[in-house]
């Protein structure tokens, strides 16, 4: 049924397209800087216990070598793992590695030797050599919470935009490809969702649902798909009349296959640019919701939560203000830089080579 010729030629073409886009992207210094920051944040969120936790990364204790912080990566990401069973006495809630610090024959501690939930008696202390960014109202290390807050922002950004892409691409593709009453219906739906002030819609749904990170991600995904759908619709409208789609149709290929195998790969680039900016705005929405108390709930660290604490203790602990602000700013800036460079890279009008 499928003739391999059109498929392979599309594939080769799109590969070349991505190579050209990447070559142009690399030429933009700002874009590369943004991409490096984004990759750094991804890495930090994946490996946050290696940077900040209350256990050594690597230590020799009672004659055995242990890797508590590495085990914690698995422990905090997946509930069950045979690594944890092998790890005792480390990674058990009752074991305090710091109390045993003198018994270690060798220990390599993380850069910030505090867990994000670990409470000390030093409340609201300004930055010092022990706590680089000070401590919050429960004596928790701000630097450790900042590092672990990266995980929240990365998760919210990528998962919510993943949901938005699924909805937006399917609806936009259907509207652009089929046209007619499908298009009218979906365009109307897009208009309805756009006319809602997004933040208000999200706020009302968050009151309905239990506020936690999963619901935040779902709600942001369910409300931020409109621009993706509009771009996808525009691209599908443009491409559906091209020769290769005609050829595919003449070969008797089904609509779904034409839409997702033939048109979608060639219409992905503008959608991805929107997604990059969408990630930045999702991070912002999460921080705003958490600030209002409807996002990630305490004690889980999120930049929005930390900003709220800072706002509440403005007069007695001014040092709490800057870390979350700078973190949010850098994250948003990085995604915007990547998005701009990416948009220029795929824009044929900026083409100068």
């Amino acid at each position, binding site marked *: 049924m499928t003739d391999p010729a059109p498929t392979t030629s599309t594939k080769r073409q799109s590969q070349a397209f991505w190579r050209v886009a990447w070559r142009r992207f690399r030429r933009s210094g700002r874009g590369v800087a943004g991409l490096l920051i984004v990759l750094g944040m991804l890495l930090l969120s994946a490996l946050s216990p290696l940077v900040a936790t209350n256990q050594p990364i690597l230590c020799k204790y009672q004659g055995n070598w242990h890797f508590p912080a590495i085990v914690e990566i698995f422990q905090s990401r997946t509930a069950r793992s045979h690594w944890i069973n092998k790890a005792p006495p480390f990674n058990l809630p009752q074991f305090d590695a710091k109390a045993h610090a003198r018994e270690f024959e060798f220990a390599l501690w993380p850069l910030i030797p505090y867990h994000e939930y670990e409470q000390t008696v030093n409340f609201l202390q300004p930055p010092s050599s022990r706590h680089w960014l000070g401590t919050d109202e429960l004596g928790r290390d701000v630097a450790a919470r900042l590092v672990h807050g990266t995980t929240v922002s990365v998760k919210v950004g990528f998962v919510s935009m993943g949901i938005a892409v699924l909805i937006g691409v399917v609806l936009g593709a259907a509207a652009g490809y089929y046209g007619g009453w499908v298009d009218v219906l979906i365009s*109307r739906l897009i208009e309805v969702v756009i*006319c809602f*002030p997004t933040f208000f819609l999200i706020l009302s749904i968050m009151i*309905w649902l239990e506020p936690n990170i999963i619901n935040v991600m779902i709600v942001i995904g369910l409300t931020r798909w409109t621009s993706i759908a509009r771009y996808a619709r525009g691209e599908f409208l443009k491409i559906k009349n091209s020769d290769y789609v005609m050829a595919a149709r003449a070969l008797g290929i089904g609509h779904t296959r034409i839409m997702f195998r033939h048109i979608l790969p060639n219409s992905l680039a503008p959608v991805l640019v929107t997604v990059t900016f969408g990630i930045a705005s999702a991070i912002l929405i999460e921080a705003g919701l958490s600030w209002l108390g409807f996002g990630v709930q305490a004690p889980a660290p999120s930049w929005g939560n930390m900003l709220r604490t800072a706002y509440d203790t403005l*007069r007695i602990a001014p040092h709490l203000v800057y870390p979350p602000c700078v973190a949010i700013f850098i994250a*948003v800036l990085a995604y915007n830089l990547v998005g701009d460079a990416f948009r220029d890279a795929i824009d044929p009008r900026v083409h100068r080579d």
Partner: protein
Amino acid sequence: MLAYTIRRVLLAVPTLIGISLVTFVIINLAPGDPAQLMTQQIQDPRISNRVYEQLREYYGLDRPIHVRYVEWLGRLVRLDFGTSMSTDNRPVMDKIKERLWPTMSLAILAIGISLTLSIPIGVYAAHRQNGWFDTISGTVLYALYSVPSYVMAVPLILLVGVQWNLLPFQGMKSDDYETLSAAGKAWDLVRHYTLITFCMSFGSWAYYSRFVRQNMLEVLKQDYIRTARAKGLGEKRVVMKHGFFNTMIPMLTLLGLLLPDIIGGSVILEVMFNWPGMGRLLFESILARDYPTVMAISFITAALVLLGTLLADLGYAFADPRITYD
């Protein structure tokens, strides 16, 4: 043009009904209702249950949701948004009227300031492309554009409001506002507006400047600009009259599309600055499950947004005679 306007207004009706239906369902399905929130303080369960039932009957919450929605629509036709389901029992229209001015004045100020600042910056930066001004303003504006308004607000409150103690940052008026002289009142308002207006406007200011610059760059490449220069027109005239006026069209659309952002984005800022505006009223009403107020604010906001996009499209046709809708 008239036919187009009428068609757009008619098309807005199903959109508005859809929006109000979704809002109505969401807010009514949220756990807890006003009667429950009001009676949860009562310790004796027998009394609280009885009061709860009476309150539900009083507010009409004991009837099915679709009946209540149709009733709400019926009242809407008469532009009656009902009575607030909070302890003050005031008509929703009155509550909104008193909150409308603080929000609208902020929005107008924010848009006005960002336009007056961004047009000269954008035009000048485009005129001297890659000059020192363009480079510096480009970097600074890019950074500013990436700072969300409320992330800028907290350090500003800390520095200007708390540590330097220069400006107030809570509410719209001082406690002793009524005792002040007319000039003192005006000065007091200006001081209260300064911080929140800056926080609301800097983002769109940065965005506009970049937008104006980009559009100017495209326009300045056009053939008619070269023609204007060849005619021997002064540089100022070429840039302003032939260049800038042709960038007005995209700006008009942007204005229409920015309206929802400014209104929707004001919730956090208004809560942060304790501002007596619509955003904070909405936030408080959602928390108190004050259904009529939530419905009214979301409906008015959605209608404003639709109006904004319609005005932008009409402005399009007005500014560019090549565009017709008929």
